[in-house]
């Protein structure tokens, strides 16, 4: 009931704004297409796609916006959209620009994937620190262990500008150590498993920054595409692999210099027999071998790339319909891949390079960083599910036997689980777009039931434990503008750390335990 009332009030508000703003102004006569194209690329493309085909946010083109009221669209651009990342552009873009933008969007078809070639990549390489051998060889700040570092991808309210940065925090003192400006929203942070000083930050617009954690500065950057979150680091720290949604390719970089070494066109036959060009899903390096695994979202394939001469590829086909993210288990030899459209998580044996089994998941499985935990002698995996369906659950699988143990009812759609060997609860973020989005639910590892709901604030998502498991970090994202820290056992609020629209949280401890929740012993 509460929900209906809130929604009703909001629609009245939106409608009244729409009526008052829509008082019969005609569009400016000359719509400067070029100017609008540039304005779109500078303000909208990082979320809505450089090709108008959508990315984090809906596709904006003549097809998807057909029949939509220009007045309502103008209002939406001015005020932003509540409970989403869409910011208000009132005061940032002029009224005539907003009106012309609406017209531009409603008349522009989805564009062809703009190319981004190996040459483009090479030309985009920037060097900020010429000689890294002259940098100090230990941290320039006080910290017990570099594993205590937690990186937060702060999006910035507008997905770009001053608020967009990778924020690095000491997870024992809950203080900010350094901030790396990223121009557009930081999205993914990966750490070098072999050398603790390096981290890699990927932005919404596919720039990768190589960050020196000892001195908290970016040393190099390269633009690997137009967008796409996929990025992985090899176990020896020598290679980075990055994949894009636009265009459909992936690239292996030399981690030392960020020079591109080999590009892969992502296309293949999907499970329904159609030849498709594909977005890049997750890319993962594993502690068990010198390989990368990459999911081809639309082709439903997982490719295993050997890190040797020529970077040969083994293709594992028919993994699922619309793959997305994945996590590792069993010393990194097994890979659990989420498949959106058939609501399964497929277990892959990376050693034999074949499918072990397709496991039942909830609706639209999105495993985020994944979570696996040893409980009473068996390894349990926890799978979150993105979709807001009639029944919303978190799946629990026995990863030794590869079978479903339980579907735990939770209060809404979920996006990312967190677990730790030393923490009693598995945290899942509720993302259903109403007041539930403020909350994170905690599942007791033993009873496998939800035992507590935290009201974190903002759009609460991406929970992550500190490396020692003592603290639970959660982003109060969207307009929440802070990271909230809880004691993992008492669940008391311990600290708030201010930043603009925080999203993904990545502990350096992850390189030690491979998948959140596993103990470092699992890697031996």
């Amino acid at each position, binding site marked *: 009931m509460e929900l209906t009332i*809130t929604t009703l*009030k*909001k629609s*009245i*508000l939106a409608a*009244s*704004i729409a009526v*008052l*703003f829509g008082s019969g102004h005609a569009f400016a006569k000359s719509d400067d297409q070029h100017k609008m194209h540039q304005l779109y690329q500078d303000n909208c493309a990082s979320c809505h796609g450089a090709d108008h085909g959508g990315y984090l946010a809906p596709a904006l083109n003549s097809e998807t916006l057909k029949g939509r009221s220009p007045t309502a669209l103008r209002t939406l651009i*001015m*005020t*932003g959209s*509540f409970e989403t990342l869409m*910011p*208000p552009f*009132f*005061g*940032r873009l002029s009224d005539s620009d907003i009106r012309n933008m609406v017209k531009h969007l409603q008349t522009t078809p989805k564009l062809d994937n703009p190319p981004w070639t190996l040459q483009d990549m090479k030309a985009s390489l920037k060097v900020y620190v010429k000689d890294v051998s002259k940098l100090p060889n230990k941290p320039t700040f006080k910290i017990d262990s570099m594993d205590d570092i937690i990186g937060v991808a702060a999006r*910035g*309210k*507008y997905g*770009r*500008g*001053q*608020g967009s940065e990778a924020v690095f925090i000491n997870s024992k003192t809950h203080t900010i150590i350094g901030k790396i400006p990223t121009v557009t929203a930081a999205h993914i942070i990966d750490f070098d498993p072999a050398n603790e000083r390096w981290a890699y930050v990927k932005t919404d617009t596919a720039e990768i920054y190589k960050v020196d954690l000892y001195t908290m500065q970016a040393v190099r950057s390269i633009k690997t595409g137009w967008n796409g979150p996929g990025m992985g680091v090899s176990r020896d720290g020598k290679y980075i692999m990055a994949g894009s949604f636009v265009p459909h390719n992936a690239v292996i970089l030399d981690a030392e210099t960020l020079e591109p070494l080999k590009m892969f066109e992502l296309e293949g036959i999907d499970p329904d027999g159609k030849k498709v060009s594909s977005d890049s899903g997750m890319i993962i390096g594993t502690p068990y071998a010198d390989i990368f695994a990459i999911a081809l979202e639309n082709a439903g394939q997982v490719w295993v790339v050997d890190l040797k001469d020529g970077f040969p590829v083994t293709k594992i086909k028919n993994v699922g319909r619309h793959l997305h993210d994945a996590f590792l288990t069993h010393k990194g030899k097994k890979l659990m891949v989420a498949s959106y459209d058939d609501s399964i998580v497929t277990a892959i044996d990376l050693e034999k390079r074949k499918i072990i089994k397709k496991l039942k998941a909830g609706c639209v499985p999105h495993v985020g960083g994944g979570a696996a935990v040893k409980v009473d002698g068996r390894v349990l995996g926890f799978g979150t599910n993105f979709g807001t369906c009639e029944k919303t659950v978190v799946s629990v699988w026995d990863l030794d036997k590869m079978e479903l143990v339980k579907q735990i009812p939770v209060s809404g759609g979920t996006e990312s689980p967190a677990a730790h060997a030393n923490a009693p609860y598995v945290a899942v973020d509720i993302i259903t777009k109403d*007041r539930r989005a*403020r909350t994170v639910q905690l599942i007791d590892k033993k009873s496998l039931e939800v035992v507590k709901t935290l009201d974190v*604030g*903002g759009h609460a998502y991406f929970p992550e434990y500190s490396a020692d498991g003592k603290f639970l970090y959660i982003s109060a994202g969207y*307009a*929440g*503008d*802070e990271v909230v820290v809880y004691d993992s056992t008492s669940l008391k609020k311990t600290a708030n750390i*201010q930043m*603009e*629209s925080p999203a993904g949280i990545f502990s350096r401890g992850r390189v030690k335990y491979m998948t959140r929740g596993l103990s470092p012993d699992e890697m031996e």
Partner: protein
Amino acid sequence: MKTLSYLLISVFALSFSLSSQAASIYAGQSKAAAVCAQCHGIRSTSAEAPFPPLAGRDEEYLESALKQYRNKTRISEIMNNIAGSLSDRDINNIASYYSRLKP
């Protein structure tokens, strides 16, 4: 649960003692999150945003400003419309909430 009831009691005590109308900072928090925070933020606004922050501002000022926007004695295309959707009680709650937040 104990902490929550304690909090609730102290919040009620606070609101009764500090304000003639019983403003609820809880109701203010939820209204602010739904109506104001998108532009003005909670503790601070975006470094890139053209909107003033509201946290820690004087309660009476916030209340009178919102009422002026609502009855259009203060003109702003966007604020006249947004404030127009708020009741006296909403304004009271929102002002009470933002004024008590540390920026």
